[in-house]
Protein backbone atom coordinates (compact mmCIF):
# COMPACT_ATOMS: atom_id res chain seq x y z
CA UNK A 1 0.00 0.00 0.00
CA UNK A 2 1.43 3.29 -1.09
CA UNK A 3 0.00 6.76 -0.66
CA UNK A 4 1.18 9.32 -3.17
CA UNK A 5 1.88 12.79 -1.74
CA UNK A 6 1.93 14.63 -5.02
CA UNK A 7 1.95 13.97 -8.71
CA UNK A 8 5.67 13.30 -9.04
CA UNK A 9 5.43 10.89 -6.15
CA UNK A 10 2.43 9.19 -7.76
CA UNK A 11 4.28 8.77 -11.05
CA UNK A 12 7.39 7.47 -9.36
CA UNK A 13 5.41 4.97 -7.32
CA UNK A 14 3.45 3.91 -10.40
CA UNK A 15 6.75 3.29 -12.17
CA UNK A 16 7.95 1.15 -9.27
CA UNK A 17 4.68 -0.75 -9.02
CA UNK A 18 3.41 -0.86 -12.59
CA UNK A 19 0.76 -3.49 -11.81
CA UNK A 20 -0.59 -1.64 -8.77
CA UNK A 21 -4.29 -0.89 -8.65
CA UNK A 22 -4.82 2.85 -8.47
CA UNK A 23 -7.38 4.01 -5.97
CA UNK A 24 -8.92 7.44 -5.59
CA UNK A 25 -12.49 7.45 -4.28
CA UNK A 26 -12.61 3.68 -3.97
CA UNK A 27 -16.20 3.48 -5.15
CA UNK A 28 -15.42 0.86 -7.80
CA UNK A 29 -12.30 -0.92 -6.55
CA UNK A 30 -13.54 -1.43 -3.00
CA UNK A 31 -16.71 -3.16 -4.18
CA UNK A 32 -14.55 -5.61 -6.10
CA UNK A 33 -12.39 -6.20 -3.04
CA UNK A 34 -15.29 -6.46 -0.60
CA UNK A 35 -17.03 -9.00 -2.80
CA UNK A 36 -13.86 -11.05 -3.16
CA UNK A 37 -13.53 -10.47 -6.90
CA UNK A 38 -10.18 -8.72 -6.61
CA UNK A 39 -7.31 -9.17 -4.20
CA UNK A 40 -4.70 -6.73 -5.47
CA UNK A 41 -1.12 -7.25 -4.40
CA UNK A 42 -0.29 -3.56 -4.57
CA UNK A 43 -2.48 -0.54 -4.27
CA UNK A 44 -1.46 3.03 -4.96
CA UNK A 45 -3.67 5.73 -3.46
CA UNK A 46 -3.71 8.95 -5.46
CA UNK A 47 -6.54 10.73 -3.66
CA UNK A 48 -4.16 13.17 -1.94
CA UNK A 49 -2.55 14.44 -5.10
CA UNK A 50 -3.62 18.07 -5.09
CA UNK A 51 -2.57 18.68 -8.70
CA UNK A 52 -5.21 16.21 -9.83
CA UNK A 53 -8.03 18.18 -8.25
CA UNK A 54 -7.53 21.26 -10.40
CA UNK A 55 -9.72 22.43 -13.21
CA UNK A 56 -8.88 25.16 -15.68
CA UNK A 57 -11.05 26.82 -18.27
CA UNK A 58 -9.70 28.91 -21.06
CA UNK A 59 -11.53 28.11 -24.26
CA UNK A 60 -10.46 24.62 -23.54
CA UNK A 61 -11.46 22.88 -20.32
CA UNK A 62 -8.98 20.75 -18.43
CA UNK A 63 -10.37 18.75 -15.54
CA UNK A 64 -8.07 16.91 -13.18
CA UNK A 65 -8.63 13.23 -12.62
CA UNK A 66 -9.08 13.77 -8.89
CA UNK A 67 -12.10 16.07 -9.25
CA UNK A 68 -15.02 14.45 -7.44
CA UNK A 69 -18.58 14.34 -8.69
CA UNK A 70 -19.53 16.65 -5.85
CA UNK A 71 -16.93 19.17 -7.00
CA UNK A 72 -18.33 18.92 -10.54
CA UNK A 73 -21.71 19.97 -9.13
CA UNK A 74 -20.27 22.99 -7.37
CA UNK A 75 -19.36 25.85 -9.61
CA UNK A 76 -18.97 25.99 -13.35
CA UNK A 77 -16.54 23.48 -14.77
CA UNK A 78 -17.18 24.18 -18.38
CA UNK A 79 -19.71 21.49 -19.16
CA UNK A 80 -23.31 21.53 -18.19
CA UNK A 81 -23.67 17.90 -19.30
CA UNK A 82 -20.81 16.85 -17.01
CA UNK A 83 -22.65 18.54 -14.19
CA UNK A 84 -25.91 16.80 -15.08
CA UNK A 85 -24.14 13.46 -15.36
CA UNK A 86 -22.43 13.95 -12.01
CA UNK A 87 -25.80 14.56 -10.40
CA UNK A 88 -27.08 11.18 -11.60
CA UNK A 89 -24.17 9.34 -10.01
CA UNK A 90 -25.08 7.28 -6.95
CA UNK A 91 -25.69 9.26 -3.80
CA UNK A 92 -23.99 12.12 -1.96
CA UNK A 93 -21.71 9.57 -0.33
CA UNK A 94 -20.61 8.24 -3.72
CA UNK A 95 -20.36 11.69 -5.29
CA UNK A 96 -18.13 12.87 -2.45
CA UNK A 97 -15.69 10.05 -3.11
CA UNK A 98 -15.86 9.12 -6.79
CA UNK A 99 -13.76 10.99 -9.34
CA UNK A 100 -13.37 11.67 -13.02
CA UNK A 101 -10.22 9.59 -13.07
CA UNK A 102 -11.96 6.69 -11.38
CA UNK A 103 -14.78 6.74 -13.90
CA UNK A 104 -12.20 6.70 -16.71
CA UNK A 105 -9.97 4.14 -15.05
CA UNK A 106 -12.76 1.67 -14.45
CA UNK A 107 -13.85 2.20 -18.05
CA UNK A 108 -17.25 0.66 -17.50
CA UNK A 109 -19.77 1.07 -20.31
CA UNK A 110 -22.09 2.26 -17.53
CA UNK A 111 -19.73 5.01 -16.35
CA UNK A 112 -21.93 8.07 -16.13
CA UNK A 113 -19.42 10.72 -17.20
CA UNK A 114 -18.15 8.76 -20.14
CA UNK A 115 -20.94 9.40 -22.66
CA UNK A 116 -20.40 13.10 -22.01
CA UNK A 117 -16.67 12.81 -22.63
CA UNK A 118 -17.48 10.97 -25.84
CA UNK A 119 -19.95 13.61 -26.96
CA UNK A 120 -17.44 16.36 -26.10
CA UNK A 121 -14.79 14.53 -28.12
CA UNK A 122 -12.61 14.80 -25.06
CA UNK A 123 -8.97 13.87 -24.79
CA UNK A 124 -7.74 11.68 -21.96
CA UNK A 125 -4.43 12.70 -20.41
CA UNK A 126 -2.18 9.86 -19.29
CA UNK A 127 1.18 10.25 -17.65
CA UNK A 128 3.93 7.97 -16.58
CA UNK A 129 7.24 8.79 -14.98
CA UNK A 130 8.73 9.04 -18.44
CA UNK A 131 6.10 10.37 -20.77
CA UNK A 132 2.77 11.95 -21.28
CA UNK A 133 0.16 10.73 -23.74
CA UNK A 134 -2.98 12.33 -25.05
CA UNK A 135 -5.58 9.83 -26.19
CA UNK A 136 -8.82 10.75 -27.85
CA UNK A 137 -11.67 9.41 -25.72
CA UNK A 138 -12.87 7.49 -28.75
CA UNK A 139 -9.67 5.47 -28.63
CA UNK A 140 -9.43 5.21 -24.87
CA UNK A 141 -11.87 2.40 -24.12
CA UNK A 142 -11.18 -0.92 -25.78
CA UNK A 143 -13.90 -3.02 -24.18
CA UNK A 144 -15.93 -3.41 -21.03
CA UNK A 145 -13.64 -2.30 -18.18
CA UNK A 146 -10.68 -2.23 -20.56
CA UNK A 147 -8.73 0.78 -21.73
CA UNK A 148 -5.45 1.68 -23.34
CA UNK A 149 -3.97 2.74 -20.01
CA UNK A 150 -0.63 0.99 -19.63
CA UNK A 151 1.00 -0.36 -16.51
CA UNK A 152 2.75 2.51 -14.77
CA UNK A 153 0.48 5.14 -16.27
CA UNK A 154 -1.75 7.43 -14.25
CA UNK A 155 -4.82 9.11 -15.70
CA UNK A 156 -4.22 12.74 -14.84
CA UNK A 157 -7.28 14.31 -16.36
CA UNK A 158 -9.35 15.02 -19.41
CA UNK A 159 -9.58 17.96 -21.77
CA UNK A 160 -12.25 19.22 -24.06
CA UNK A 161 -13.30 22.28 -25.99
CA UNK A 162 -15.53 24.62 -24.05
CA UNK A 163 -18.59 23.79 -26.10
CA UNK A 164 -21.04 26.28 -24.67
CA UNK A 165 -24.31 25.65 -22.88
CA UNK A 166 -26.15 23.58 -25.50
CA UNK A 167 -25.54 20.16 -24.02
CA UNK A 168 -27.30 17.68 -21.82
CA UNK A 169 -27.09 14.25 -20.26
CA UNK A 170 -29.79 11.85 -19.20
CA UNK A 171 -29.86 8.31 -18.01
CA UNK A 172 -32.34 5.52 -17.53
CA UNK A 173 -32.42 3.28 -14.49
CA UNK A 174 -35.27 1.39 -12.94
CA UNK A 175 -35.15 3.34 -9.72
CA UNK A 176 -35.45 7.07 -9.16
CA UNK A 177 -32.01 7.44 -7.57
CA UNK A 178 -28.92 5.38 -6.76
CA UNK A 179 -29.05 3.30 -9.86
CA UNK A 180 -26.57 2.07 -12.40
CA UNK A 181 -27.23 3.28 -15.91
CA UNK A 182 -29.31 0.97 -18.07
CA UNK A 183 -28.86 3.44 -20.90
CA UNK A 184 -27.32 6.89 -20.91
CA UNK A 185 -27.12 9.59 -23.53
CA UNK A 186 -25.16 12.79 -23.86
CA UNK A 187 -25.79 15.36 -26.56
CA UNK A 188 -23.48 18.30 -27.16
CA UNK A 189 -24.16 21.00 -29.71
CA UNK A 190 -21.15 23.24 -29.96
CA UNK A 191 -22.72 26.16 -31.69
CA UNK A 192 -19.49 28.12 -32.06
CA UNK A 193 -17.58 25.24 -33.65
CA UNK A 194 -20.64 23.90 -35.48
CA UNK A 195 -20.23 20.43 -34.12
CA UNK A 196 -22.68 17.89 -32.74
CA UNK A 197 -21.57 15.06 -30.45
CA UNK A 198 -23.64 12.15 -29.22
CA UNK A 199 -22.34 9.69 -26.62
CA UNK A 200 -24.14 6.51 -25.61
CA UNK A 201 -23.63 4.64 -22.35
CA UNK A 202 -24.55 1.08 -21.35
CA UNK A 203 -25.47 0.30 -24.92
CA UNK A 204 -22.42 -1.56 -26.12
CA UNK A 205 -19.09 -2.95 -25.00
CA UNK A 206 -17.66 0.55 -24.90
CA UNK A 207 -19.10 4.04 -24.91
CA UNK A 208 -20.40 4.59 -28.41
CA UNK A 209 -20.81 7.62 -30.62
CA UNK A 210 -23.65 7.97 -33.10
CA UNK A 211 -21.95 9.52 -36.17
CA UNK A 212 -24.92 9.39 -38.50
CA UNK A 213 -27.16 10.94 -35.92
CA UNK A 214 -24.53 13.62 -35.35
CA UNK A 215 -24.40 14.39 -39.09
CA UNK A 216 -28.15 14.47 -39.30
CA UNK A 217 -28.42 16.88 -36.38
CA UNK A 218 -25.64 19.04 -37.78
CA UNK A 219 -27.69 19.27 -40.95
CA UNK A 220 -30.65 20.50 -38.93
CA UNK A 221 -28.55 23.24 -37.35
CA UNK A 222 -27.02 24.12 -40.72
CA UNK A 223 -30.54 24.72 -41.90
CA UNK A 224 -31.89 26.50 -38.85
CA UNK A 225 -28.78 28.50 -38.09
CA UNK A 226 -26.22 27.43 -35.51
CA UNK A 227 -26.57 30.56 -33.44
CA UNK A 228 -30.30 30.39 -32.99
CA UNK A 229 -32.57 28.41 -30.72
CA UNK A 230 -34.57 25.95 -32.75
CA UNK A 231 -37.38 23.55 -32.15
CA UNK A 232 -36.90 20.48 -34.28
CA UNK A 233 -40.12 19.08 -35.70
CA UNK A 234 -41.59 15.75 -34.78
CA UNK A 235 -40.19 14.14 -37.91
CA UNK A 236 -36.66 15.37 -37.25
CA UNK A 237 -36.85 14.30 -33.66
CA UNK A 238 -37.95 10.85 -34.67
CA UNK A 239 -35.30 10.50 -37.35
CA UNK A 240 -32.59 11.62 -34.96
CA UNK A 241 -33.84 9.14 -32.35
CA UNK A 242 -33.87 6.32 -34.87
CA UNK A 243 -30.31 7.09 -35.95
CA UNK A 244 -29.14 7.18 -32.33
CA UNK A 245 -30.83 3.87 -31.58
CA UNK A 246 -29.31 2.35 -34.70
CA UNK A 247 -25.83 3.26 -33.46
CA UNK A 248 -26.28 1.20 -30.29
CA UNK A 249 -25.02 -2.34 -29.87
CA UNK A 250 -26.95 -3.32 -26.75
CA UNK A 251 -27.35 -6.70 -25.11
CA UNK A 252 -29.92 -8.25 -22.80
CA UNK A 253 -28.72 -8.38 -19.23
CA UNK A 254 -30.14 -8.42 -15.73
CA UNK A 255 -30.60 -4.65 -15.78
CA UNK A 256 -32.51 -4.39 -19.03
CA UNK A 257 -33.21 -5.80 -22.44
CA UNK A 258 -31.53 -4.77 -25.68
CA UNK A 259 -34.92 -3.79 -27.09
CA UNK A 260 -35.56 -1.52 -24.12
CA UNK A 261 -32.17 0.11 -24.46
CA UNK A 262 -32.69 0.88 -28.13
CA UNK A 263 -36.14 2.20 -27.44
CA UNK A 264 -35.14 4.56 -24.64
CA UNK A 265 -32.12 5.78 -26.54
CA UNK A 266 -34.44 6.99 -29.26
CA UNK A 267 -36.71 8.63 -26.70
CA UNK A 268 -33.83 10.27 -24.86
CA UNK A 269 -32.34 11.47 -28.13
CA UNK A 270 -35.57 13.17 -29.16
CA UNK A 271 -35.93 14.89 -25.82
CA UNK A 272 -32.28 15.88 -25.76
CA UNK A 273 -32.53 17.43 -29.21
CA UNK A 274 -35.54 19.45 -28.07
CA UNK A 275 -33.85 20.67 -24.92
CA UNK A 276 -30.51 21.44 -26.47
CA UNK A 277 -32.08 23.00 -29.53
CA UNK A 278 -33.76 25.50 -27.26
CA UNK A 279 -30.46 26.59 -25.69
CA UNK A 280 -28.66 29.19 -27.74
Amino acid at each position, binding site marked *: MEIARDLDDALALAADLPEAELIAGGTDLMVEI*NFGRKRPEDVLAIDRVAELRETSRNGRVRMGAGVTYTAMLQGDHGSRAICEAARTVGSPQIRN*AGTLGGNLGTASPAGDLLPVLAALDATVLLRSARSERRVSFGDFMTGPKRSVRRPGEVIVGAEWDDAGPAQTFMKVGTRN*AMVISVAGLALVVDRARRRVGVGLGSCGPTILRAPEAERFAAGLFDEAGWERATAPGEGARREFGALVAAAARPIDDVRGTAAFRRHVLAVMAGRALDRVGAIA
Partner: protein
Amino acid sequence: MNELRLVVNGVERRTEARDGESLMTVLRERLALPGSKNACEQGECGSCSVLLDDALVCSCLVLAAAAHGRDVRTVESLGSAGELHPVQRAFVEAGAVQCGFCTPGLVVATVALLRDNPEPTDIEIREALSGNLCRCTGYGTILEAVHRAAREMYAG
Protein backbone atom coordinates in the same frame (compact mmCIF):
# COMPACT_ATOMS: atom_id res chain seq x y z
CA MET B 1 -0.61 -5.83 7.65
CA ASN B 2 -0.61 -2.10 7.19
CA GLU B 3 0.19 0.12 10.15
CA LEU B 4 -2.39 2.81 10.45
CA ARG B 5 -2.90 6.05 12.33
CA LEU B 6 -6.28 7.75 12.26
CA VAL B 7 -7.91 10.55 14.17
CA VAL B 8 -11.22 9.00 15.10
CA ASN B 9 -13.82 11.14 16.82
CA GLY B 10 -11.12 13.55 17.83
CA VAL B 11 -8.77 10.95 19.29
CA GLU B 12 -5.64 9.68 17.63
CA ARG B 13 -5.85 5.92 17.21
CA ARG B 14 -3.09 3.57 16.09
CA THR B 15 -4.15 0.30 14.61
CA GLU B 16 -3.53 -1.92 11.63
CA ALA B 17 -5.40 -3.16 8.60
CA ARG B 18 -5.06 -6.14 6.33
CA ASP B 19 -4.60 -5.58 2.60
CA GLY B 20 -7.91 -4.59 1.12
CA GLU B 21 -9.56 -4.01 4.50
CA SER B 22 -12.12 -1.24 4.53
CA LEU B 23 -12.33 1.62 6.98
CA MET B 24 -15.70 0.19 8.01
CA THR B 25 -14.09 -3.05 9.09
CA VAL B 26 -11.33 -1.25 10.96
CA LEU B 27 -13.87 0.86 12.84
CA ARG B 28 -16.09 -2.10 13.65
CA GLU B 29 -13.61 -4.87 14.30
CA ARG B 30 -10.45 -3.15 15.49
CA LEU B 31 -11.55 0.10 17.10
CA ALA B 32 -14.72 -1.17 18.82
CA LEU B 33 -16.91 1.34 17.00
CA PRO B 34 -19.66 -0.83 15.55
CA GLY B 35 -22.02 2.11 14.99
CA SER B 36 -21.07 2.16 11.31
CA LYS B 37 -23.16 -0.73 10.06
CA ASN B 38 -22.31 -3.54 7.66
CA ALA B 39 -25.37 -3.90 5.44
CA CYS B 40 -24.17 -4.07 1.84
CA GLU B 41 -20.43 -3.38 1.62
CA GLN B 42 -20.81 -1.84 -1.79
CA GLY B 43 -21.83 1.72 -1.08
CA GLU B 44 -25.46 1.15 -1.95
CA CYS B 45 -27.12 1.50 1.43
CA GLY B 46 -25.32 4.24 3.36
CA SER B 47 -25.51 2.35 6.67
CA CYS B 48 -21.78 2.77 7.24
CA SER B 49 -21.72 6.51 6.53
CA VAL B 50 -19.00 8.52 8.27
CA LEU B 51 -17.44 11.93 7.84
CA LEU B 52 -13.96 11.59 6.41
CA ASP B 53 -12.18 14.94 6.63
CA ASP B 54 -15.72 16.36 6.90
CA ALA B 55 -16.96 14.71 3.70
CA LEU B 56 -19.83 12.25 3.97
CA VAL B 57 -18.70 8.90 2.59
CA CYS B 58 -19.45 5.20 2.89
CA SER B 59 -16.74 3.79 5.12
CA CYS B 60 -17.06 0.41 3.37
CA LEU B 61 -15.64 2.03 0.22
CA VAL B 62 -12.69 3.64 1.97
CA LEU B 63 -9.57 1.54 1.85
CA ALA B 64 -8.42 1.71 5.43
CA ALA B 65 -4.73 1.83 4.63
CA ALA B 66 -5.32 4.74 2.26
CA ALA B 67 -7.00 6.71 5.06
CA HIS B 68 -3.79 6.79 7.11
CA GLY B 69 -3.52 10.08 8.98
CA ARG B 70 -7.01 11.28 8.15
CA ASP B 71 -9.84 12.51 10.35
CA VAL B 72 -12.85 10.25 10.80
CA ARG B 73 -16.06 11.07 12.58
CA THR B 74 -18.56 8.32 13.25
CA VAL B 75 -22.03 8.26 14.74
CA GLU B 76 -20.42 7.60 18.11
CA SER B 77 -19.03 11.13 18.12
CA LEU B 78 -22.45 12.78 18.09
CA GLY B 79 -24.11 14.12 21.20
CA SER B 80 -22.56 13.81 24.61
CA ALA B 81 -22.80 11.38 27.47
CA GLY B 82 -26.00 12.84 28.84
CA GLU B 83 -27.51 14.38 25.76
CA LEU B 84 -28.39 13.31 22.26
CA HIS B 85 -27.48 15.36 19.22
CA PRO B 86 -30.63 17.15 17.96
CA VAL B 87 -30.66 14.87 14.90
CA GLN B 88 -30.52 11.80 17.11
CA ARG B 89 -33.28 13.13 19.34
CA ALA B 90 -35.46 13.95 16.33
CA PHE B 91 -35.07 10.41 14.96
CA VAL B 92 -36.23 8.92 18.26
CA GLU B 93 -39.13 11.32 18.71
CA ALA B 94 -40.40 11.20 15.14
CA GLY B 95 -40.58 7.41 15.14
CA ALA B 96 -37.90 7.23 12.45
CA VAL B 97 -36.24 4.24 14.11
CA GLN B 98 -37.52 0.70 13.74
CA CYS B 99 -34.95 -2.05 13.42
CA GLY B 100 -32.41 0.76 13.48
CA PHE B 101 -29.80 -0.83 11.27
CA CYS B 102 -29.92 2.08 8.81
CA THR B 103 -30.26 4.65 11.57
CA PRO B 104 -26.62 5.51 12.39
CA GLY B 105 -25.89 6.08 8.71
CA LEU B 106 -28.98 8.20 8.31
CA VAL B 107 -28.12 10.21 11.39
CA VAL B 108 -24.64 10.94 10.06
CA ALA B 109 -26.00 11.79 6.60
CA THR B 110 -28.59 14.10 8.15
CA VAL B 111 -25.94 15.87 10.23
CA ALA B 112 -23.98 16.46 7.02
CA LEU B 113 -27.09 17.67 5.20
CA LEU B 114 -28.13 20.12 7.91
CA ARG B 115 -24.58 21.42 8.21
CA ASP B 116 -24.74 22.47 4.55
CA ASN B 117 -28.44 23.28 4.28
CA PRO B 118 -30.16 24.44 7.48
CA GLU B 119 -33.62 24.55 5.95
CA PRO B 120 -33.97 21.78 3.39
CA THR B 121 -37.18 21.22 1.47
CA ASP B 122 -38.74 17.78 1.16
CA ILE B 123 -37.18 17.15 -2.21
CA GLU B 124 -33.77 18.39 -1.05
CA ILE B 125 -33.96 15.96 1.85
CA ARG B 126 -34.97 13.14 -0.47
CA GLU B 127 -32.07 13.83 -2.82
CA ALA B 128 -29.61 14.15 0.05
CA LEU B 129 -30.71 10.90 1.70
CA SER B 130 -31.21 8.86 -1.45
CA GLY B 131 -28.07 6.90 -0.67
CA ASN B 132 -29.39 5.67 2.67
CA LEU B 133 -31.68 2.68 2.31
CA CYS B 134 -34.21 1.92 5.00
CA ARG B 135 -36.21 -1.29 4.78
CA CYS B 136 -38.53 -0.69 7.73
CA THR B 137 -40.02 2.79 7.80
CA GLY B 138 -40.97 3.71 4.26
CA TYR B 139 -39.07 6.96 4.96
CA GLY B 140 -42.07 9.11 5.99
CA THR B 141 -40.97 9.39 9.59
CA ILE B 142 -37.38 9.97 8.50
CA LEU B 143 -38.44 12.97 6.44
CA GLU B 144 -40.30 14.26 9.49
CA ALA B 145 -37.27 13.67 11.71
CA VAL B 146 -35.03 15.75 9.43
CA HIS B 147 -37.46 18.66 9.45
CA ARG B 148 -37.80 18.37 13.20
CA ALA B 149 -34.03 18.40 13.69
CA ALA B 150 -33.63 21.39 11.37
CA ARG B 151 -36.19 23.32 13.36
CA GLU B 152 -34.52 22.50 16.62
CA MET B 153 -31.03 23.31 15.41
CA TYR B 154 -31.76 26.53 13.59
CA ALA B 155 -35.14 27.96 14.49
CA GLY B 156 -34.21 28.88 18.03
